[in-house]
């Protein structure tokens, strides 16, 4: 029988979990609950004696100071309703797993694999509430149908023990399909039914390949028929998925611009992203770029002995279904990318950028869409656990709000790593595999979780989106694995490594096989979470915390011994060969045989057309604003400008002890810094600057400008800390709405044109700034289609930037420092107001879009950064969202000092409207301060550039903005700070 152990707080001990839940219920559901007590339930499904269970409950499960335990108890008294939420079978239960391990330690014996501990939460409610209320609390706050189950009890009821044990009746089997007999319709149906996300052309390519005689004879030799096995079909679908092959970025595109000029683009990726990097690489003579676009992440030079690695991933679709699991998996997933770059880098920082709908969204929600507030909360918690528990600081990020992210939130997770240039005499950024080296799977076990993640994320979110695509990561299993891998790496025990992410073993082994020229996988050797998985499921499962390594046979004993010592499971699941085949066996029978060449290069090239039409925006008519001060406060408290401190504080941004410039700076540590600075090596002051730029709000006008502005913002943010443009590199992460024309997507050609234009800008501006892309990722199907409702995200491009600096002590922050300091602005302010926060606030479309003058900006940024390094500049701040007025206010309240500004000395071209001077979002502008004594020097240094003194710091509690004689704005800094902080404070 199973034991049910309930842990509750002793009388008189406050229950923070209960209290914050109570507040949430009040705030978001308007349900008044008198009191909530949260109990932890452990269901031990194992034959143990009462005495053993007593011991377990008393020691590891219960904290004797504040908690008490009950074994197989009734429901507690004096509560009205009870809600118990537990997992569905097969969903990762980290606490349950840890509980089982601690039982084994306590009793000094191993429990059978099928015995498990399952955890659930028992929420006990007091007060005048109905069963329906509890139902709502479950559905809208506590329970997610994709991963959880729940029971509601009232006082009299007996609690039912639920044991979400996976039991699969059917025996593992391999199904085959005779492709020749299938009509086009049947082929498409096959793809849909099995969630293969293959199009007809691709299916036909497979069909005809299976007609090849030599291939058929080879198959016969190994006991296969001419029919394709489900293992082969799934392997091809995974390898050919948009997610893994980036078909759209590699497609041949016929592009027509707004004037009808046509051109043919052979692969956006090669033509713009790769080409620009190559061009920049040729120009520079140094070894700054070490490894780009060939591995899981980009690698650049940090100093003569060390390289740094950077990668940013998106995890949008899973986060839409299960925000917590999706985001958690996103962050630990990108960690593995860096861990799997070269022969493995040590993880030193995370970044995160989210795009959400308004968390205070009021209207009715479409089916299968979670409330934005719940997405927000789940994603933030997921990244918090993923980063904090892994001991990796989250040092940079932002949140962008737009209600078109309702259908699919965007979750960008980034990770940086560091590794010695040379390890054991070999270049650390290179992998080697020889014929006969062993395929070793390291880390977690395989279950049904995450099956079809690769193919499913290559589709829009629809009725049939599979629950199995949801996974929950386990940071600690991965931390143990990382600790082990660093050790094994330095001992030279393996020669190649990559992560198991999308596509699982199929992807990781499939890619690695190219290094040796083939592989032989024995699926029955792979450790499973539970029995009954079909071979194809084992191959494509995306169960977390797994890496695939190539280990020479001579090292295997040492490798496995070390692995055991670190409590990490490692299993030999086959060997690499030079057969030329992706060869998969199950119980010694061949279940898949695919020529590597066909698997990786057999994919028919996609041909697409793109057509751009400049949308005719209505002429912008701006209202007369009476009170600019009020407008400034409204802007400061708008979602895209306001403080995100309540989120950022939940991330450990200082673990590893490298922190130099933190996310929040200034007198009270609450001012928004432009970029993060860290010092990765204790013995050296050399550092890294991490920043980003993202501005989808401009995509509605022109994605060319949008892309240019995003890159410009990333570079500007880094320059504000003193970073040198000559040692910056960036990552491009495109998140687009479906750019392929179809009946359900009539404007596909236009959306593709937007993608083309963004890429053209990427090419033009990375080159003119000399800042190359070193890695990137795209996610192309960020749409929601349910019945005839369709929500598409605005085209969104994130540039993440990494810069190398010689001396972290020669950087600065954005907060005003000293009374009397002189305030300068660099860059020209124009009436570029389209897409600005100002217009969004007034709900106005149209106007002129900001444009980027890279030549001028590069010159200005370089000079400012140099002045910072030379100690001439006391504070520098990027001027973007909300314009000049917002940036000035941020500098003032962050430094706890007021200022006086005169707009009449602003480098400005335009109509002369004060609101445009204050709120325009022209690119290329940086506000900075210098001491009175250095002001003259600055003027000399910037002679001939649009750089002007516009005011001075301090001697007051006010931000005072004049236009010549007349006062335009006069507001107390503490008041401005209040408005900037209030909106998301409680969330």
């Amino acid at each position: 029988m199973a034991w049910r152990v309930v842990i509750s707080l002793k009388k008189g001990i406050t229950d923070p979990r209960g209290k914050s839940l109570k507040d949430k219920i009040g705030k978001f559901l308007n349900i008044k609950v008198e009191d909530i007590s949260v109990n932890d339930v452990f269901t031990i499904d194992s034959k143990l004696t009462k005495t053993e269970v007593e011991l377990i409950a008393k020691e590891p499960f219960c904290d004797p100071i504040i908690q008490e335990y009950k074994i197989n108890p009734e429901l507690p008294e004096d509560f009205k309703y009870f809600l118990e939420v537990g997992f569905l079978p097969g969903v990762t239960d980290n606490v349950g797993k840890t509980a089982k391990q601690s039982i084994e330690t306590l009793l000094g014996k191993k429990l059978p694999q099928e015995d498990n501990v399952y955890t659930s939460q028992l929420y006990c409610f007091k007060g005048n509430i109905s069963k329906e209320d509890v139902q709502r609390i479950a559905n809208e706050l506590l329970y997610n149908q994709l991963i959880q189950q729940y029971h509601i009890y009232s006082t009299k009821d007996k609690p039912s023990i639920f044991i979400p044990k996976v039991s699969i009746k059917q025996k593992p089997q391999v199904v085959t399909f005779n492709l020749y007999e299938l009509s086009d319709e049947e082929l498409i149906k096959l793809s849909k039914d099995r969630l293969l996300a293959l199009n007809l052309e691709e299916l036909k390519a497979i069909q005809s390949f299976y007609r090849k005689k030599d291939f058929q004879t080879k198959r016969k030799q190994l006991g296969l028929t001419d029919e394709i096995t489900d293992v082969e079909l799934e392997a091809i679908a995974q390898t050919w998925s948009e997610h893994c092959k980036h078909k759209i970025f590699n497609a041949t595109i016929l592009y027509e611009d707004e004037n009808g000029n046509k051109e043919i683009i052979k692969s956006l990726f090669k033509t713009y992203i790769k080409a620009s990097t190559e061009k920049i690489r040729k120009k520079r003579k140094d070894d700054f770029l070490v490894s780009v676009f060939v591995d899981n992440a980009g690698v650049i030079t940090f100093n003569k002995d060390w390289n740094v690695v950077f990668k940013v991933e998106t995890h949008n679709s899973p986060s839409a279904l299960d925000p917590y699991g999706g985001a958690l998996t996103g962050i630990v997933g990108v960690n593995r990318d860096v861990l799997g770059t070269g022969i493995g880098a040590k993880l030193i920082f995370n970044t995160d950028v989210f795009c959400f709908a308004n968390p205070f969204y009021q209207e009715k929600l479409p089916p299968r869409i979670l409330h934005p507030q719940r997405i927000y909360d789940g994603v933030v918690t997921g990244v918090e656990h993923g980063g904090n528990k892994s001991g990796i600081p989250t040092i940079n990020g932002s949140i962008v709000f737009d209600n078109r992210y309702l259908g699919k939130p965007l979750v960008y997770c980034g990770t940086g790593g560091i590794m010695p240039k040379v390890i054991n005499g070999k270049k650390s950024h290179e992998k080697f595999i020889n014929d006969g080296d062993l395929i070793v799977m390291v880390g977690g076990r395989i279950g049904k979780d995450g099956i079809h993640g690769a193919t499913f994320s290559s589709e829009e979110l629809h009725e049939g989106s599979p629950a199995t695509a949801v996974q929950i990561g386990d940071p600690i299993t991965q931390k143990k694995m990382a600790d082990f891998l660093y050790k094994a790496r330095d001992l030279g025990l393996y020669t190649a490594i990559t992560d198991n992410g999308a596509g699982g073993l199929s992807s990781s082994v499939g890619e690695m096989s190219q290094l040796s020229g083939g592989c032989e996988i024995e699926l029955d050797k792979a450790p499973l979470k539970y029995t009954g998985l079909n071979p194809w499921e084992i191959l494509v499962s995306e169960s977390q915390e797994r890496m695939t390594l190539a280990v020479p046979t001579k090292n295997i004993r040492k490798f496995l011994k070390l692995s055991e010592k670190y409590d990490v499971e490692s299993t030999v699941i086959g060997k690499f060969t030079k057969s030329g085949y992706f060869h998969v066996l199950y119980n010694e029978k061949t279940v898949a045989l695919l020529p590597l060449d066909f698997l990786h290069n057999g994919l028919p090239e996609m041909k697409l057309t793109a057509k751009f039409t400049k949308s005719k925006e209505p002429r912008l008519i701006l209202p007369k604003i009476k009170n600019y001060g009020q407008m400034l406060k409204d802007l400061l408290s708008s979602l895209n400008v306001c403080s995100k401190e309540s989120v950022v504080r939940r991330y450990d941004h200082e673990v590893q002890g490298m922190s130099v410039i933190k996310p929040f700076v200034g007198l009270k540590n609450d001012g928004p810094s432009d970029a993060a600075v860290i010092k990765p090596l204790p013995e050296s002051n050399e550092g890294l600057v991490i920043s980003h730029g993202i501005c989808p709000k401009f995509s509605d006008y022109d994605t060319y400008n949008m892309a240019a502005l995003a890159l410009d913002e990333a570079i500007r943010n880094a320059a504000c800390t003193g970073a040198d443009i000559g040692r910056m590199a960036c990552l491009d992460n495109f998140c687009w709405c479906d750019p392929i024309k179809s009946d359900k997507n009539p404007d596909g050609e236009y959306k593709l044109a937007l993608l083309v234009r963004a890429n053209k800008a990427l090419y033009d501006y990375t080159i003119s700034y000399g800042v190359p892309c070193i890695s990137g990722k795209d996610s192309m199907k960020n749409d929601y289609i349910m019945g005839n409702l369709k929500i598409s995200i605005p085209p969104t491009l994130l540039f993440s930037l990494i810069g190398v600096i010689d001396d972290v002590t020669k950087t600065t922050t954005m907060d005003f420092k000293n009374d009397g300091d002189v305030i300068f602005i660099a860059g020209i302010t124009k009436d570029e107001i389209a897409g600005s926060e100002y217009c969004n606030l007034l709900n106005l479309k149209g106007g002129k879009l900001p444009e980027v003058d890279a030549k001028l900006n590069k010159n200005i940024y370089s000079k400012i950064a140099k002045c910072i390094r030379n100690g001439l500049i006391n504070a520098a701040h990027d001027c973007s969202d909300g314009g000049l007025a917002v940036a000035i206010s941020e500098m003032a309240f962050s430094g706890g000092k007021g200022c006086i500004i005169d707009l009449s000395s602003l480098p400005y071209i335009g109509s002369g409207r004060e609101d445009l001077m204050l709120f325009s979002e022209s690119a290329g502008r940086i506000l900075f301060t210098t001491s009175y004594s250095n002001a003259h020097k600055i003027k000399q240094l910037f002679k001939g550039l649009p750089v002007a003194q516009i005011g001075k710091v301090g001697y007051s509690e006010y931000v005072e903005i004049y236009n010549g004689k007349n006062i335009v704005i006069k507001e107390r800094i503490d008041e401005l700070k209040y408005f900037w902080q209030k909106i998301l404070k409680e969330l």
Partner: protein
Amino acid sequence: MANCLVLTGFGINCENETLTALKLAGAKHAEIVHISEIISGEKRLKNYQFIVFPGGFLDGDDLGSAKVQVNRFRHSLIDRIKRKLSDELMEFVEKDKLVLGICNGFQFMVKLGIIPMINNNGFQQTATLTFNDSNRFEDRWVYLKVNQNSPCIFTNGISQLYLPVRHGEGKFVTSTKVLSEINKLNLYCLQYADEDGEPTMDYPLNPNGSMFSIAGISDKTGRLFGLMPHPEAFVFKTNHPNWTRQEIGEPDGLKIFKNAINYLK
């Protein structure tokens, strides 16, 4: 010369910067040791004079912070000598040696019963660290008042500290009886304070709602010390949030490690 051990493994994640702090403080022999090396018996605690239990998320804090590590120390046997880890540790603390627990390491020390250890009858848990009143993990810098009457050798000669806290379970809770003992014996070395150094219960100055604003405690000898804030996170001037605004003196975190190393000289 003092031999220092920094424990790692199974979720500990501040071992490297803790080692750096020890070296900067003048430790000649300091090494990071994996818990599995202790369990296997390759490394023996008795060969060290100073053990640091660094911060982290031991076993994910899945059963409550550091609970699984406590369970591990109480019940796993050292392979080669078939002896309980906790006995090995008890033998260590009885000698004139030092133990420092930071954040997760502090939670471990308190829950195993290494501190406050008011009655000298072995490891017995008499206090705990639980969920912050805010019910949130938070990373923020706090002012700390040092109890001038405390026997703690780590805080010797220090009156105030400014350090980051990074935890979700830092609220110090114990019985009124134990608390009064802690008071009487001055075992509360550190209290969350306001900018003027006055102990406070106000959030966020007191980030978790700890009883009596307690941020760190020691045993009666002052050799065994644990705290929630992270001294190893402030050993370089540039770690200070305001280093771009003001002159920074000797980093506060370093002072704590120097006290320890000097004591062992």
